[in-house]
């Protein structure tokens, strides 16, 4: 279902842009086959493929700096290049953010459809960031408040905002819904 909130990104299956000189594929490990399929048509000298382990992405990147393998791969690219990203939504936007920091324009970073509906959630009360949230409302792991996960999305945080759902009346506990 579409959202009325315009900050919520929409995605399409990415397609190869044959006009660019170099293509960089970045994905979480379980995305390997999808990346291989998409990159098949490109000769080996025009592509570079990087995989990152699923589990520790958020922890490793708490300092918001690109992992060195990624930073090196991006720095060596010419103007005529494109990055294709595969993984969860939070991963996609982390890579996007690193790429923009390295000088890429948004149009050079193609984000494939997220691998799942899981969201990263930013608690607007204590700023705790929670990964892989699949239901709303959710209890904040930082402040313990019950958060409604809204569709308002920040590309910089790669996260949806979570707002206390029962601040007006703590006895109200809405039923959980899948995101």
């Amino acid at each position, binding site marked *: 279902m579409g959202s009325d909130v315009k900050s919520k990104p929409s995605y399409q299956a990415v397609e190869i842009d044959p*006009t660019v000189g170099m293509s960089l594929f970045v994905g979480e490990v379980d995305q390997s086959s999808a990346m291989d399929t998409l990159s098949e048509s490109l000769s080996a000298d025009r592509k570079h493929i990087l995989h990152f382990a699923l589990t520790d992405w958020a922890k490793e990147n708490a300092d918001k700096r690109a992992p060195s393998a990624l930073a090196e791969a991006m*720095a060596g*690219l*010419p103007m*005529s*290049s494109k990055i294709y990203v595969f993984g969860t939504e939070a991963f996609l936007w982390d890579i996007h953010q690193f790429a923009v920091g390295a*000088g890429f324009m948004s149009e050079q970073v193609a984000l494939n459809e997220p691998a799942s509906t899981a969201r990263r959630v930013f608690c607007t009360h204590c700023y705790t960031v929670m990964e892989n949230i699949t239901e709303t409302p959710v209890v904040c792991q930082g402040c313990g408040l019950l958060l409604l996960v809204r569709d308002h999305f920040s590309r910089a945080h790669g996260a949806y905002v979570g707002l206390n759902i029962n601040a007006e009346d703590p006895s109200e506990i809405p039923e959980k819904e899948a995101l």
Partner: protein
Amino acid sequence: MSNFTIPVRVSEIKDVAPAIREFTLVADNGEDLLAFSAGSHVVVTMKGEGVVMRNAYSLVSDPNDVSGYKISVRLQEESRGGSVFMHTKVKEGDVLSIAPPSNLFAPYWGAKKHILIAGGVGVTPFMSYIPQLLQSEETVEMHYMFHSSKTGAYVGELAKQLGSQLFCYDSDKGRRADLSDILSNQPVGTHVYICGPQSLIDGVLDTADGLGWPKNAIHFEAFKAPEPGKPFDIELSKSGVKLHVKADSSILETLEAAEVPIESSCRGGVCGRCFVSVLDGDIEHRDEFLSADEKASKKCIMPCVSRATGPSLVLDL
């Protein structure tokens, strides 16, 4: 509401190329002028005999220097008269009126490298870029094409600022730039800025596109003086006033001559400041501002450049 203007005195005039004259403008009240950003222009109002002309000129001075502004004007014999007026009528000590600096061509500060491509008098906006880029320790490379018999202003000054990062191509000496060479093998994060004739802009855009560059990394000054067209009439719905737009005047100029209050800024169909709603009539849209949907709606016009296709337009003024 009318536009805010600043009276300025011409404190110095000098020729910086055979067909380009530089004017230094200081505030008539002796105070500092407004600070501005790299790539800014001012609109100068010129009062000729029986006609008022307004042209936009890039500021060619250092943005940090508010004691005076400099503009450089290329003599265009074929044009609507603004440059001829500046070259032949304006003398040191004269007072002109300008609008505050405005910017439609700012540097992209997130860039890792800036390539400036200038053609002829198109060097002007880069004269304010370079001090600010160098002060911020940005990586800059400039490619400057000109005919030394007419243009080629500021080559010495630029060489001093940019050293080996300045590349000059004087057509009168048979030197041509190879755009493909310039754009190939640039590192990621490079941004290109073009100011010059449309053919140069198109050439860079085509070359970059062929090389697989992202469109948003290419910046150019899109606004230009209004082109003449067929004459037509306009009717102002609120006042009932009817005016005739001559072949070589724009709707905006016609409204201003009749002292109809209207805001404006770039006068070249880019900034959107002079937006007017249209109640009736067919429009020839010539601006870069309105979206395709807005143009198709036939309900609005940018009167600085666009015109009627038929005999008349009714404006919501």
